[in-house]
């Protein structure tokens, strides 16, 4: 079966092994080490690592469409944020009457705006199962509609990149509006608990961290399963020579649509896990800058490798944490420089440095080689 095949691969086993080992070590150090020990991992660090893992899952989703389908999406932040908003809405409803205004149904910002009842699209979000389905459905549906329109009319290359950027920009403007009913500028925040567990306790934070790790593992296996399946080969063919694949009789737009929707759903899950750990979701997640940043994580780690995306996401975000801590002004220089250096000097990313090209089947088939030949 396509999902179990990756588990027999050496690379997937190594990846999963490292990931689970890291999860276990962090958990053990957090729970069993005394607080004053040098090896103790604080709850803050656990949450920070959990955030990195969310970004890693998001990067894997982007790598799936960019690395294996050749679509440079500059709007994946939108899917991430939609998943996050779905989760945020559930968490808002969980607050109940513990909000500032004590309204049992309406979230604080609605009371503040003098709304009388819940808008229809907020109904059902008090139930966890419904919210979790929406985490997948909201980004999935958007990707389905958008992808259907775009791929059917064969919008490709930079055009597609630009309109994905326009998509997330339009959504950002929309979510900034108070009338939308998603908290406007401030977004959704002040969450209390998830599935009955208090979000402020260390145990819940550790649980979320582990859940994110497991989600990343599952996401990785799903992506790996897709790219090693026949569908995955067709999608690589689309990436390298779309017209030829179409002439060979494949329905290119269906392959593109399927992979795009799966990727959007994974991004949504990443967003949903991100929100309870960070404690807020606001329209800035829709900003074009964030979406394009994700792409650079993937580029740094190494395109079309999946594990490279994970490495890139964690490295860049660790760098961001360090930089913004010691010299905040320098961060944009560093990020900008990273964009330039990676694209000019490191086209295969860190993964390309670690493993010599030619050994892996994917690496020998990079689009740059193809385009240079074309």
């Amino acid at each position: 079966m396509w999902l179990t095949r990756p588990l027999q691969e050496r690379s997937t086993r190594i990846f999963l092994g490292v990931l689970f080992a890291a999860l276990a070590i962090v958990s053990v150090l957090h729970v069993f080490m005394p607080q004053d020990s040098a090896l103790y991992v604080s709850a803050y660090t656990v949450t920070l690592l959990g955030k990195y893992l969310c970004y890693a899952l998001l990067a894997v989703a982007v790598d799936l469409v960019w690395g294996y389908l050749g679509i440079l999406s500059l709007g994946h932040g939108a899917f991430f944020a939609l998943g996050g908003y779905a989760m945020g809405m559930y968490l808002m409803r969980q607050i109940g009457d513990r909000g500032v205004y004590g309204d049992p149904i309406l979230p604080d910002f609605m009371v503040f705006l003098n709304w009388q009842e819940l808008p229809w699209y907020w109904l059902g979000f008090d139930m966890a199962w419904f919210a979790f389905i929406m985490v997948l459905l909201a980004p999935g549906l958007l990707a389905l509609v958008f992808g259907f329109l775009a791929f059917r009319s064969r919008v490709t290359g930079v055009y597609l990149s630009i309109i994905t950027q326009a998509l997330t920009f339009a959504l950002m403007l929309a979510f900034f509006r108070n009338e939308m009913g998603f908290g406007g500028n401030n977004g959704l925040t002040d969450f209390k608990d998830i599935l009955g567990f208090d979000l402020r306790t260390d145990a819940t934070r550790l649980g979320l961290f582990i859940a994110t790790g497991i989600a990343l593992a599952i996401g990785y296996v799903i992506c790996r399963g897709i790219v090693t399946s026949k569908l995955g080969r067709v999608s690589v063919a689309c990436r390298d020579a779309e017209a030829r694949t179409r002439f060979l009789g494949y329905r290119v737009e269906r392959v593109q649509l399927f992979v795009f929707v799966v990727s959007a759903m994974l991004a949504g899950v990443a967003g949903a896990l991100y929100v309870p750990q960070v404690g807020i979701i606001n329209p800035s997640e829709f900003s074009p800058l964030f979406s394009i940043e994700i792409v650079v994580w993937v580029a740094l780690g190494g395109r079309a490798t999946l594990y490279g995306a994970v490495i890139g996401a964690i490295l860049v975000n660790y760098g961001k944490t360090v930089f913004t801590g010691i010299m905040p002004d320098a961060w944009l220089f560093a990020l900008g420089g990273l964009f330039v250096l990676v694209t000019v000097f490191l086209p295969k990313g860190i993964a390309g440095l670690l493993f010599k090209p030619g050994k892996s089947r994917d690496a020998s088939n990079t689009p740059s080689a193809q385009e240079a030949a074309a």
Partner: protein
Amino acid sequence: MSTSKLLGRALFACFLLWAGDLLAQTEDAEAHQLLTVLAESSSTQKKAAVLQIAGSGDVRSRGWLESFANNKLGRIESSGQFIIVLENRGRNWTVESALTGENLGEISRRDIDTVRVNNALRNELEGILSVIDLKSPEEHSRLTAARALKGSVDGTLAERLPELMNDEKSDAVRAALTEALAIYKVEEQGDVAAVATLSGSLNSEARAALQQAMRSDDAALVAAATEAMASIEQKLTLNRAAETLYFGLSLGSVLVLAAIGLAITFGVMGVINMAHGELMMLGAYTTWGMQQLMPGQPGLALILSIPAGFLVAALAGVAIERTVIQHLKGRPLETLLATFGVSLILQQLVRTVISPLNRTVITPDWMSGSVMINEALSLTLNRLYVIGFALVVFAGLMLIMRKTRLGLEVRAVTQNRAMARSMGIKATKVDILTFALGSGVAGLAGVALSQITNVGPNLGQAYIIDSFMVVVFGGVGNLWGTLLAGMALGTINQLLEPWAGAVLAKILVLVFIILFIQKRPRGLFPQKGRAAEG
């Protein structure tokens, strides 16, 4: 020259001086007499004194009466000299002579005897003052006064207006007076005949008068007023449409300026330059820098910034091309990422080196203000200049593309790079020159933007997505497409704004373009030719 002659001349000169002085003295004596009457007459007789001053024809009379109405006309107790108070805060007041206008410095307020005015008289003074203005020899000041009268005519003035209108030579002033009188008649007397005069007027006071008439009990008046109102509404709608179109074209020309450079580089090199917005920002900062270098001459600095902004941005563009883009030939998506990195660096550079805050760019006098077409429609000058500038830049680029060797080569490379190279065109050179041209135009856009928006590190980001939309909408490599797309998007945005709000209008435009791209993936004017499918 003999001594006697010299003496004669000197005597004659003395006589002239004396005569002139005497004339001024008699005039001042008269003026002094007028003011003394005003100051010393009882409050019931003051009106007669005022009318005498108003009728004296003295050029200074307006200033006297105005300061009299504001309690600023006074007399120095010790000398009896009439003064006008300039500054009446504190113990000592700054005053000037009412007769000569000479500044007399500060005088203790105890020494000043203010000429008192009562409320009834003050109200009448307004009308009297406007009559003085209406008698002014300058047509411009008569017109201003006549326009100001609309809605503020009172009974006494209404009686005098017909006589003034008879004496009036200018048609424009007479029309304004007729309208002012008609507003008074409709408002105060419910005059049906006067309603017809107001029909088609764009003045807000006239509308208020008609609305009041529509609420009256007189059926004939209501009918006439309703009819007049309908014709006004129709005219107003037309004017609003013209205004929306103007705003649309002005926004559109900004978009065209921002997008046209992008269209050139994208068309020729297939390169998305995400740093294009930051090149615009450099142009805007160049304007600011020029104005800092030339304090006190914002206009000259602005004109000089046009070539300077072009040069700065073009040089930065060449630097970007040489250091980054040339290494990424044939990898458009990577180029997009790398230039985005450049844009982040440029933004942060400006933040660190200059300031994260917005800079103030001065708008020169000849660019501020507005042209009044009629009372409901006035066009701001700076936007008018930007529209003109955009059209000039567009025409210039068209000329370069159509009439020069460079343009020919650029078009050849755009259509088929490989074929152009095999015909002996140096594609690398064309790349550099095109990139310099496109970036320079971005700099020009920045110079124009500095006049209508804030100059800050985020200036480029605000326009980059919009300019991409214009390029994508218009079709790559087609300047006419860019012009049409920019103007269309600007106008659509402005049309949607009144009923959707600014943000929603923008969202709708973005959604519209996303849908449009589905229908026509290569824009309004797709490139033709065999290479187009590339």
